[in-house]
């Protein structure tokens, strides 16, 4: 496979008209190849979610296009976005695990439905396969029989991933999948995404505001700010030697030892700062 699996070219998304028009995304381009995880980093309002929605065909573009395996699937003024029979190829995991599952559908049933639609399975086959798929990402049978409200955030997020994987897609767009769940569940999800990449040769677009996670998961990264991609490149390079001032600000803002791990020079500065702040009473002598 020579060309990219998924390519967004000069994507611009505009909300509103006339004087009130506001460009949520402007001239954003990115590519995804099989078996790679690419990161998109940015703060709220940077347009990263809008960009994700464009790539899965949920959002129309003002200009620019999305190519799937070389074929244009989203273009300006096209009414119907991604052709129906192609839709299984690009799937999405949403940010909020509390709203991305139908509250009246048991976990297994949400997965089985996708299997029935795309993999031409009978009801029973789909049911068995759904349990197997859920099992493989750490949802056991009793949990699979529950309604979403009886599952934790991390478990729900894994159910949504199973649902997205059911059509055996080639690309997974993950829009802040870890931001609403606990830290230990985050780690589990990060491991899962890495496993999916290597086992299924899946291309993953990982959208996040968490630079530490992006550093850990991705090989290339795009930094977005106010609808524009301000810096792109190999993740290590971008985070070690940020060229755009905004990337540097983002790095400096990381709390705790996150900065240290990414750039040691900066890390020392942080721990020095912390030393100065320390109150003498906190020498750990008593009180605990």
């Amino acid at each position, binding site marked *: 496979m020579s060309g990219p699996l998924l390519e967004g070219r000069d994507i611009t998304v505009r909300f509103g008209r006339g004087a009130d028009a506001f460009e949520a995304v402007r001239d954003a381009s990115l590519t995804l190849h099989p078996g790679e995880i690419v990161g998109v980093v940015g703060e709220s309002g940077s347009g990263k979610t809008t960009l994700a929605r464009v790539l899965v065909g949920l959002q129309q573009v003002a200009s620019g296009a999305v190519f799937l395996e070389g074929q244009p699937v989203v273009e300006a003024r096209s009414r119907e976005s991604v052709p129906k029979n192609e839709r299984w190829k690009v799937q999405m995991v949403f940010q909020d695990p509390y709203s991305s599952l139908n509250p009246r559908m048991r976990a297994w049933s949400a997965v089985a439905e996708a299997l029935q639609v795309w993999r031409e399975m009978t009801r029973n086959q789909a049911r068995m396969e759904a349990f197997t798929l859920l099992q493989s990402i750490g949802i056991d049978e009793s949990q699979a029989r529950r309604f979403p409200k009886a599952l934790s955030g991390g478990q729900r997020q894994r159910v949504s991933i199973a649902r997205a994987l059911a059509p055996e897609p080639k690309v997974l767009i993950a829009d802040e999948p870890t931001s609403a769940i606990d830290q230990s569940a985050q780690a589990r999800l990060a491991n899962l995404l890495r496993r999916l990449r290597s086992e299924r040769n899946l291309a993953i677009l990982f959208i996040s505001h968490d630079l530490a996670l992006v550093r850990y998961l991705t090989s290339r990264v795009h930094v977005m700010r106010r609808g524009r991609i301000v810096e792109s490149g190999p993740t290590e390079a971008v985070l070690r030697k940020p060229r755009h001032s905004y990337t540097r600000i983002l790095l400096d803002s990381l709390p705790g030892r996150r900065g240290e791990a990414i750039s040691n020079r900066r890390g020392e500065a942080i721990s020095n700062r912390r030393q100065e702040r320390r109150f003498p009473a906190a*020498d750990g002598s008593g009180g605990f």
Partner: protein
Amino acid sequence: MEAESPILRVENLCIGVPRRRRGLLSIVDTADFQLRRHQALGVVGESGSGKTMLCRALMGTLRRHGAGVASGRILYRERDLAGAGEKVWRRIRGRRIGYVPQSSLAGLNPVLTVRTQLTEAIHAAREASATEAEDQALQLLELVRIPRSGQVLEMRSHELSGGMRQRVMIAAALAQEPEILIADEPTTALDVTIQREILNLINRLRERLKMALIFVSHDLAVIEEVCDSVMVMYAGASVEIGPLEAVVRHPRHPYTRALLASRVDLAVPGEDLETIPGDPASVGAWPSGCRFRPRCPLAEDDCREGVQPPLAPAGLQRTACLHHDRMGCDP
């Protein structure tokens, strides 16, 4: 030394919600810590660990949420507040113990201006004329580094950005010059750059006003930024407490260690992150004995017995683990 006597002591605090017929549903039990002047205590735990309920207990607002103190003591300057009524709490809340809620629209009244809400808080603290109160409101906004404070005074919460809103809420909490400031996930919904500003602000304020701080967060990295000691909560119980450096460098509870090991900021790309097997114990379904036992690599038969083990000294900190001596020293 005066600084050494704790201003707040929480002893074996248990919080429950009464249930029809089936008695009390425990949400927090054996929360146990003390707070000295100028100390900044971080409280870290995942959802369902009981950290928000603990804040409510310290603010005396449990009853509003249908809960209550089941046993244990909350000693503020040697005075037990655990069973105190609304009348007592009204003198403590805000004046002695300030509160910064989660950064959301809910913290500020949407129909009132910043001026109204700040002067209200000031009037609650002391006798002040309208102009005095307004002067102080302006000073407070400057204290939390809000530019163009005169303009901001006339704004309502929807006109403020998330970071500004949080600053105003901090200003409101400081209006009565509390001795202790409780901040419940004050930066969780904010962008990292804004979070950085708020954390810096909290640090500066704490130094300047010599307050004690209780900072609740699910994120250890954030706690590292503002706190000098930390309490780790799991399933409603304090499992480890101690100086921040000691806990982070030499955790004495397997849960703390697992939490540290699952941190992505210290992970090496290409290697799997460590995860905690199983799912968090949910309220009402806590296992017998040590609550972390079903997920714990060190668990033995004696962990199964009785109730959640109490905190016991270990190194510089205190831990609830019976087998902490078998833990390696590094996270």
